[in-house]
């Protein structure tokens, strides 16, 4: 018999979360350790280098790059405004006749002057960038100049695939059962700024409607790959997503096609209908895997903030499993045996299998790799 480890996504009504919120470049942290923050609060900000404006000053002045230093009026690092004289020659015989001067086209700073190419680089003013808390919680750590750690207690669901970036909003259950296919009639102005929950499927047409009504995010069991292609205008090759800008974020909990949302996931979302949630569709199916998240912050005391050590879900007799590949994709069963010998399945592949029983009493034998554990 024995037991085996299995992969799985986390779906839980209560977890202690720890989120790092880090600036892309060093900057300023705006909050102190111990402060309670809301998802929308800015916790750190920085200035990204401004746009670079390159142009060939030597050419404009009509001199060789090596000669440029005789005419230049600026130095690297110098602040300039529009129309600052960058270089000028003295004109014919040094008398100012046909005098040529080159002025800056922008406000900013001189970045570089090259005597090799005659090219100068001007940099426009810096661009402010802010990092928000994303989740309601408490600042438990501050990395000086870089960012913070926010912790909270949340109901938490990991999606399998998503598109679109971070957003927050109130959950709105539109599906009645996990098998529902979301009907266009349910999308109206009441969905504006909400995170709506579909059941097993949402079609391209309904997604478009949701965008029109200002929905912030959609949570669905399944979605059609062709619809995603239509929405994005391209086929997703390598699954690195989150940067798409289609007007809302989509979090898919089960996979591609029409697949019933796992009952546990559905019930959890239903229990928190109307609650605030933070979600994102970022997915990276590569080393350092990122999966989409649905985070519903709960009330908590600070002494509750102790994170449990991560462990792999264990497959053993009695474990509840969900099947994650055809046949029976999406169905729930209970493990009845874990034979150790390699067994041949329909495709004639020799694999380690498990035996399981559906709630109606029928039994199956499937590869262990094709199930995930439903943690109780």
């Amino acid at each position, binding site marked *: 018999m024995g037991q085996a480890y299995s992969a799985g996504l986390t779906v839980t009504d209560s977890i202690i979360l720890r989120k790092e919120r880090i600036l892309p470049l060093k900057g300023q942290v705006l909050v102190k350790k111990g402060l309670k923050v809301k998802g929308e609060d800015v916790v750190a900000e920085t200035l990204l280098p401004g746009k670079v404006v390159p142009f060939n000053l030597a050419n404009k002045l009509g001199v060789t790059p090596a000669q440029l230093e005789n005419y230049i009026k600026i130095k690297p690092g110098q602040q300039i405004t529009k129309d600052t004289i960058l270089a000028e020659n003295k004109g014919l015989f040094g008398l100012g006749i046909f005098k040529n001067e080159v002025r800056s086209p922008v406000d900013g700073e001189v970045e570089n002057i090259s005597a090799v190419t005659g090219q100068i680089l001007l940099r426009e003013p810096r661009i402010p960038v802010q990092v928000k808390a994303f989740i309601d919680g408490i600042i438990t750590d501050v990395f000086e100049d870089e960012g913070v750690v926010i912790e909270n207690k949340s109901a938490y669901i990991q999606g399998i695939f998503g598109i679109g970036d971070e957003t927050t909003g109130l959950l709105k259950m539109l599906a009645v059962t996990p098998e529902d296919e979301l009907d266009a009639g349910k999308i109206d102005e009441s969905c504006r700024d909400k995170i709506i929950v579909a059941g097993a499927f949402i079609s391209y047409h309904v997604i478009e409607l949701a965008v029109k009504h200002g929905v912030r995010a959609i949570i669905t069991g399944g979605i059609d790959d062709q619809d995603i292609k239509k929405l994005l205008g391209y086929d997703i090759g390598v*699954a690195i997503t989150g940067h798409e800008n289609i007007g809302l974020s989509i979090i898919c909990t089960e996979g591609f096609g029409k697949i019933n949302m796992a009952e546990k996931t559905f019930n959890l979302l239903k229990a928190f209908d109307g609650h605030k949630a933070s979600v994102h569709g970022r997915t990276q199916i590569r080393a350092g895997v990122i999966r989409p998240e649905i985070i519903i912050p709960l009330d908590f005391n600070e002494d509750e903030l102790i994170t449990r050590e991560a462990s792999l879900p264990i497959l053993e007799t009695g474990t509840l499993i969900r099947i994650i590949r*055809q046949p029976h994709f999406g169905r729930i069963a209970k493990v009845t045996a874990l034979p150790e010998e390699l067994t041949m399945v329909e495709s004639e592949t020799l694999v380690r299998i498990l035996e399981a029983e559906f709630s109606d009493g029928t039994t199956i034998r499937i590869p262990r790799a094709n199930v995930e554990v439903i943690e109780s």
Partner: protein
Amino acid sequence: MQYDEKRLTRIVATDCGSTTTKAILIEWIDGEYRQTIRGEAPTTVEAPLNDVTKGVINATQELEELARLKYKNPNLKFMEDGEFVIPRKGDIGVDAYVSTSSAGGGLQMMVTGVVAAMTGESAERAALGAGAIVMDLIASNDKRMNHQKIERIRQLRPDMILMAGGEDGGTVKHVVEMAELVAGADPKPRLGSSYKLPVIYAGNKDATNEIKNTLASKVDLIVTDNIRPKLEQENLGPARDKIHDLFMEHVMQQAPGYNKLMEWTKGPDHQAVPIMPTPAAVGNIMQTIAKDENIEVVGVDIGGATTDVFSVFTEEYIFNRTVSANLGMSYSISNVLASSGLPNIMRWVPFDINESELRNMIKNKMIRPTTIPSLLEELVLEQAIAKEALRLAFEQHKEFASGLKGMQRQRDISEAFSQSTSGATIVNLMTLNLLVGSGGVLSHAPRRNQTVMMLIDAFLPEGITRLAVDSIFMMPHLGVLSEISAKAATEVFRKDCMVYLGTCVAPVGKGKLGKPALYAKLELPNGQKFEEEIPFGEIRLIPCGEGEVAKATLKAHGGLILDKDKNRELTIDLHGGKVGIVLDTRGRQPFALPVEKAERIKSLKKWMRELKAYPEDILV
């Protein structure tokens, strides 16, 4: 450091792939080294574990369980408290643990050059050859304004940049200008901001000092030999090697738990055995085969995220390796669809399937990469996708496998002006002796006949070519094992790893469907004879076992030829194997499948039936 059989009696070797961690047990039994047990577990780089060593523990646990069953000894144990016991003490522990790793995913690069079709293309070739995805090629003459180029560089966030430009003694100005744009963009690496972006400079050596002045303070600048020292000479080797080094340092190291794994891999005296990148380990093995047997070899290792192709050609054993970073059977499966297009996949499928259903199936495999096809129909589809992944990877390889001695390629001046169609490949399928497949989809195909079909359809071998497969996918393990025991690696390679599948005979040229293409007379060692005038567009499989040789008389008809000397008649020994001898008269150069769907499906079924690739019920 090499150890003998007194020090090494039981070894565990793992390969941590991007999808699965494969563990094998190698033991000294009855005076020889043999591979005895194999176990596997999902690679654990995903949250919540984020630690590659957990997958190693799980795979080793499976080895232990199977070893206890096999030897009926409940006391056998290789690990205690989650770590290997080294050296072995009776039933407990192992004498060495070694590992390879390819977890880490793709390498994303940006390249620059002065003239896009010349130095730019050379830089691109070097980057692609080293396994990178080239996100963009930026050149002085690429028609974008300088500020647009700067914006583009800033947006990209590559893993590294390769800068080429100028032959030695040529333009300095344009090369430095490109460096100024890179410096102006101040690019940041994709993974983390804790280190500077690596930038390899492989351009005009006269510009090196200026490049250093411009870039050294902003990026991690690495200077190497000019990729195009002369217009008619390309020198990709040094830049490619630098890319590989940086790939290991910056990309593979991102695999969580990698540092712990490095502490685990050691020999009997606790001396560390460095983790070897999987492609390097497989490359070692391929070169050994070619040299030992004095043959030309093409090898392929198709994984979940990447497909590596290796080749050894010409008398000088010129070795080439390419890594197609985004062609694979799980993480990258969706990119195979995006790169090849749906019709190219569907052309290998002997039944009708709705496009939307197929797309969803492929995407579901991508997001749940560790699942296995349990249904026959899904297996057929995955193998169709595999043919396309292999074909695309091989095309990339052919384009980039070039070279005279070392990594240098000489071209004459006329070729230098037509770069986009240049790059005379040294891969010659007509002279190729052996095609070796490795990687899950080839090594673990339920029937070896499927492996033969995938290799033939994807690589389209020409003339006479032997086919082989890595039995259970252990070339990486043996590649790293050879670092501590060449004897163990060689013995296991010959006895347990290499499985000869048979020989493919494929006349090259056009023919007319149904008209005679190949007369074949084979005398088999058991006295049986096969004789047939095979029409064009057919496949025949003649059983001929491993270690057996058939005496063959072959005559090609029409415009078809059988070898590099354009012979139409050959009397030759054909080697058998697990599957047998395949006579393939579907033509080469061109190889074309029927365009009309019903006709194509009918032909596919006929060929698959002849090759005994699938059970009859799916071919009805």
